[in-house]
């Protein structure tokens, strides 16, 4: 007689050995969940049979707050979504407001924006390399490697906007103020440092056979599956499907810039890592081009001077999508007059990528489930809104 309920006991056919499904709770306070994410794994021995994610521990009511604030006031809430790359979120929010209000942006501001967004992308990817290395088992070393470059970029952000993580630097119609005087030298030095950091990661992780063997072939995803599950960004490109909103639905000044879209081949965890490595490298090229362009237009306006003190938008509806650091970062906005949006909805890439987690971890080992979760590169501020 078993001490376990009947439905949970299943005998293995070959040796008659009885196994019991066990339920393991992971999180919400768990270092491998990258924040406050909880998943309940049902395991049969070491294999994952079922996984139920629970989210919402960081839900702050972003959309309700946005509905109740002035268009400019609400800005500050949005860089708290993807807090690893605050400026990428500000970009999407500002683009939505500009689309609704037909607000033009000076060219210099566009280049500044793209430069800051690409630096944010590098920030976010370095966080991923560090945290993912820790997931796989390099403990703190990769974390510190990632942190070195992040600190340097954050120092620059602080100089530009006065804040590190939540810069609130963009405005509908441009950016808050021009870059500091020495920015050309600062950023060029940063780029050298970032490239050195990428090479260090290449040696530390990609040059490590244990790391490569852990990741290669794990949870392969086909492009069809990725599209059906709603995966976007590096997770989609790792499958070999070349789609990047910066190229395929271009916005801002991206059409003027030359860069490649790195893609993987197998859609496994290793490809997701390598796509991000290549993407961070491409971002340094974009930043370099932005610097060249910016040096040609010193002293020009960075904020549309014709805007009223209070933005009022009569009516309109749009769905603006940008290539965020994790995937398609979309903002749906509906205006019905007044100085506040009637409804704003965030389509957060982490949320959609995470919803595919269940399908991806079933059938893998528990230790691999942690890596698969890490390879999605979620940020809980964005998942929970």
């Amino acid at each position, binding site marked *: 007689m078993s001490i376990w309920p009947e439905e949970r006991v299943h005998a293995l056919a070959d040796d008659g050995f009885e196994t019991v499904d066990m339920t393991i709770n992971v999180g919400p306070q768990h270092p491998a969940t990258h924040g406050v994410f909880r998943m309940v794994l049902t395991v049969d021995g070491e294999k994952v049979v079922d996984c139920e994610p629970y989210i919402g521990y960081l839900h702050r*009511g972003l959309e309700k707050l946005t509905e109740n*604030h002035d268009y400019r006031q609400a800005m500050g809430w949005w860089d708290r979504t993807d807090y690893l790359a605050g400026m990428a979120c500000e970009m999407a929010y500002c683009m939505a407001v500009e689309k609704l209000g037909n607000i033009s942006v000076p060219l210099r501001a566009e280049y500044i924006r793209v430069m800051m967004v690409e630096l944010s992308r590098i920030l976010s990817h370095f966080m991923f390399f560090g945290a993912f290395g820790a997931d796989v088992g390099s403990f703190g070393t990769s974390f510190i490697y990632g942190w070195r470059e992040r600190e340097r970029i954050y120092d620059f952000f602080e100089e530009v906007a006065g804040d590190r993580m939540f810069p609130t630097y963009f405005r509908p119609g441009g950016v808050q103020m021009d870059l500091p005087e020495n920015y050309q030298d600062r950023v060029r030095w940063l780029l050298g440092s970032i490239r050195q950091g990428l090479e260090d990661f290449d040696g530390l992780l990609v040059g490590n056979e244990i790391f490569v063997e852990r990741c290669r072939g794990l949870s392969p995803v086909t492009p069809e599956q990725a599209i059906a599950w*709603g995966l976007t960004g590096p997770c989609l490109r790792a499958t070999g*499907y*070349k789609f990047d909103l910066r190229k395929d639905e271009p916005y801002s000044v991206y059409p003027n810039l030359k860069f490649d879209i790195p893609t993987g081949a197998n859609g496994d965890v290793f490809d997701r890592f390598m796509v991000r490595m290549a993407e961070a490298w491409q971002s340094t090229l974009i930043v370099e081009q932005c610097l060249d362009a910016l040096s040609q237009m010193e002293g020009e306006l960075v904020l549309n001077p014709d805007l009223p003190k209070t933005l009022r938008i009569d009516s309109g509806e749009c769905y603006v999508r940008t290539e965020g650091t994790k995937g398609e970062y979309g903002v*749906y906005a509906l205006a019905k007059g007044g100085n506040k949006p009637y409804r704003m909805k965030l*389509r957060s890439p982490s949320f*959609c990528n995470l*919803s595919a987690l269940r399908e991806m971890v079933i059938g893998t080992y528990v230790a691999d489930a942690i890596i698969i979760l890490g390879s999605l590169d979620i940020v809980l501020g964005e998942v*929970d809104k």
Partner: protein
Amino acid sequence: MSKTLAPKPIDQVVKLLEQRFGKLPVAINQTATDANIDCPPEHFRAVVEELKNHRDLAFDFLRNIVGIDMLEEGLACKYQFFSYKNRQAVQVTVLTPPGNPHIPSITDLYPAANWHEREAAEMVGLIFDGHPNLKNLLLDEDVRIHPLLKAHPLQKAEILQGIEDTTPGFTF
């Protein structure tokens, strides 16, 4: 598979949709960024199946679902679809009558809809018929409120946590 196609202009998508959906009682117009189909809930499944399966439409990717409280008009639900094959985007708007917020679920057609529908259900109170697991996602499991309804106040925190004698939250 990985060729770069330019996104199709909105007016071309509108024309294409008018050809396909001329017979159904739907209205086709456009927003600032996408073509839009206004569709009553009873024809919603037919429209989505056509959008997904027809060769010229082939909307294989569900981007986003937005639930909106339109006050006396009822609850609206907006779906943003995208076609990787044809590089075109469309929005489908379903307006449910007041007091009857039922919409058929599309989780069987688009697995990505699962969490989006759960979110719209808890936030504004839409009910997606046929959804496998329509419980709260972002909110507490046992909370039965719909915070994104316009009638729901911003200020009142639902869980008072021992500070009942003062007004919780900030005054905006």
